[in-house]
């Protein structure tokens, strides 16, 4: 799908090139400021020599300036955390000189502190987010399959109710969720307050509403001829679903899985209410408590913990960003 978009763009842009215009150039108010800066020596000479500098600047040069400014804005905080995590001084003031020192002291400290509580948080966060997002993906796929391929009474009402329900985040019901969990603790302590299973159950309550529409739309794009052929060959509904439909919708499963994983691993409010024992808590709560009240003195180890916590998520995101962008756009534009 993104391929076709790309093709479209290229055609669009080729056309614009022929017409000798760069869209939006004259629209931006900031250009005046940017243009007022002293012109850079024309370094990019290779293919652009034929273009005089003035035209090159109006066409593309200013875009590079904006791009560099945007990158500085985007990356400065990230570079700052990385630098702070490598700085052995470890206080807030000591972290201000970017990349002046290199030491892994902070990393060793965060990993060994309190008998390795950081790794416990990390493990908890991973277990909770992985299980929740896997279950979310499965429940959503099953629901979307039913809504897309079956006709039953209450189908439209069901879809509409989900559409309305998803407007109300679980955060709004946090008090009632907490009190419900207290009650569940009395009956089933194993899935009550302070347990990971309990937290995962709560997360699953919000699973259907948020993601089912993306999945539903995707199911609808798959021709029914495929499952019908399988049925004629004698496959039952479970076989059709698990061995034919699920592989076909893998891209959207990956997108929803990843997005919900990122959401769950960063969820703070509900987790902080349900998990009270430090040994059960997740990264978000642990790192928050690490510097609440001790911002200055714990800064270095916090930064190290933050880098370790953020890296896997960011790598995963960058690897899959094509699909994510595709999924977001599919959910919006199509």
């Amino acid at each position, binding site marked *: 799908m993104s391929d076709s978009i790309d093709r479209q763009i290229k055609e669009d842009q080729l056309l614009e090139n022929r017409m000798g215009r760069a869209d939006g150039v004259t629209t931006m108010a900031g250009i005046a400021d940017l243009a007022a800066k002293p012109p850079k020596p024309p370094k990019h000479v290779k293919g652009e020599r034929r273009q005089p500098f003035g035209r090159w600047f109006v066409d593309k040069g200013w875009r*590079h300036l904006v791009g560099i400014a945007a*990158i500085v804005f985007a990356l400065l905080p990230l570079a*700052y955390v990385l630098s702070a995590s490598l700085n052995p001084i470890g206080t807030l003031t000591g972290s201000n000189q970017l990349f002046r020192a290199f030491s892994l002291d902070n990393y060793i400290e965060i990993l060994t502190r309190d008998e390795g509580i950081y790794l416990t948080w990390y493990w908890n966060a991973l277990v909770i987010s992985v299980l929740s997002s896997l279950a979310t993906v499965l429940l959503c796929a099953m629901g979307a399959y039913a809504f897309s*391929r079956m006709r039953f009474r209450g189908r439209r009402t069901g*879809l509409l109710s989900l559409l309305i329900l998803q407007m109300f985040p679980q955060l709004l*019901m946090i008090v009632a969720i907490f009190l419900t969990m207290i009650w569940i603790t009395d*009956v089933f302590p194993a899935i009550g307050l302070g347990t990971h299973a309990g937290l995962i159950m709560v997360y699953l309550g919000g699973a259907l*509403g948020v993601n089912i529409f993306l999945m539903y739309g995707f199911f609808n794009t798959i021709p029914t001829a495929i499952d019908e052929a399988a049925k004629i060959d004698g496959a039952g*509904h479970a076989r059709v679903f698990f061995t034919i439909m699920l592989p076909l919708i893998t891209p959207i499963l990956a997108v929803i899985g990843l997005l919900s994983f990122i959401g769950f691993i960063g969820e703070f409010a509900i987790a902080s209410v349900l998990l009270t024992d430090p040994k059960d808590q997740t990264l978000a709560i642990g790192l928050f408590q690490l510097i609440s009240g001790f911002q200055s003195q714990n800064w270095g180890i916090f930064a190290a913990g933050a880098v370790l916590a953020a890296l896997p998520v*960011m790598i995963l995101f960058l690897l899959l960003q094509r699909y994510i962008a595709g999924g977001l756009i599919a959910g919006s534009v199509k």
Partner: protein
Amino acid sequence: MADVKTEAPPANTPPKRPRGGAPEFGPQRKLTSGGILALVIKVVLLGIIDALAIFGLYVLIGKGDWVAAALLLAVVGLVNYIYLKPGVLPAKYLTPGLFFLAIFQVFVIFYTGYISFTNYGDAHNSTKEDAIAQIVRTSQERVPDSPAYAVEVYKQADQFGMLVAEPGGGTAFGTNEQPLEDASSAPDGWDKLNLNQVLRFQDEVLALNVPVSDDINDGTLRTPDGTTAFVFTSTLEYDEAADAFTNTETGVVYADDGEGNFRAEDGQALTPGWRVVIGWDNYAYAFTNEQIRDPLIRVTIWTFAFAFLSTILCFALGLFLAIVFNHPTLRGKKIYRILVILPYAFPTYLTGLVWAGMLNQEFGFINEVLLGGANIPWLSDPWLARLSVLLVNMWLGYAYMFLVCTGALQSLPDDVIEAAKMDGAGAWRIFRSIKLPLLFVAVAPLLIATFAFNFNNFAVIFMLTGGNPRFPDTTLPIGATDIMITMVYKIAFGSGGGRDYGLASALSILIFIVVAIIAAISFRSTKSLEDLH
């Protein structure tokens, strides 16, 4: 966002079939359609669910909670019916998701509504019996002529108990819950604390409060040092017939006031109270009490402003960058695009914490390095704090808008633009009159969704400022950058000022109404925008 699809099922879906399942799937008489393995998995899963349910029923009936037991039985019966009966396919696929949805999304909405009509909170936490017991316990004083009992303190798991040598010569054992009972030694499994442990568990030992007999008015035994105990009796005596407490020293009578408290005639109440339904009081309190009314108005205005400005700022920056990088032969376009969306990949909770450090007034990076040692109170001045919250949220959110706008820009139809060019429209004109409106149609539902999201954007506020700086004119733990959802969280779970679940739920319901209005507007406007399209 996706309501388009609900309106018009695509043409390639099968035509409407009779309800109750999809007869197109295979033979109907079989127990399962997927062979032996599927059957085994199904039976095992159902077995686990049924086993859990039987355990739950056992506990619930033991507690005498018949309503819950009946409900559990009905739900489990339904689940078994759905998965054992051939057919009912939609139910087979929807039940797992709907089960969790029903409890943790639908039920809790109604439960929130119910709690908002009660006085549930730290001061009214439990039943009336518990409240009575606790009042007796907390109002105790040492009986002046109480003899000293020799005691030993015992521990099992996190429970503590006391073995008492009675004046008559026998010994008795009791705990906080269990009144003293004659026993020659502590029960099995209880370990005696040595002196070191007594010191280590000092708080628990001091809190040990063993009732002398079943009648709470007889008093309890307490030990200050783990070796000798004295009888403490309550200065408040509970009279069951009159349902009132009498202070044995002053003679003041505290009677049940119908609102979950024992209250004297001069208005003084005993703590704790107990849970009762108090009707609209929480709402009335929120709108009339001056401790909360003005702050609530300010928080509400700021919530709208924050959500609106955040959405606009993120959209503006995202759209601007999307346009800047949307050039056919721009070098390094891909690198720009990837680097620019990095903030979106950085976890939200870390964003707030990291920026909080960078914006620190004395030691932060922004003041010390970028502004050359300035002393700007980014997070402690109300207006600067609001500005900081907006900027940080822009850093966090523009990448999403950038992705969306890039996609939308790239999928604009060429024929319209070409036609406009034929008609002699300039670049600006094309942008203003064609691209922007088309783009807007595409992203309008997302803008509304983003607004709704920011309306409850807990993480940024809570991690960056924690809602501070505090309002000077209220004792509630709320401040200038608090939005409604952080206010709810703090009132319900905050450390300062006592937890008040009832009030927090009432505020939740207010947010609920606002969100519902946004939702209604969003459905309408997406429809009207589609008509435009």
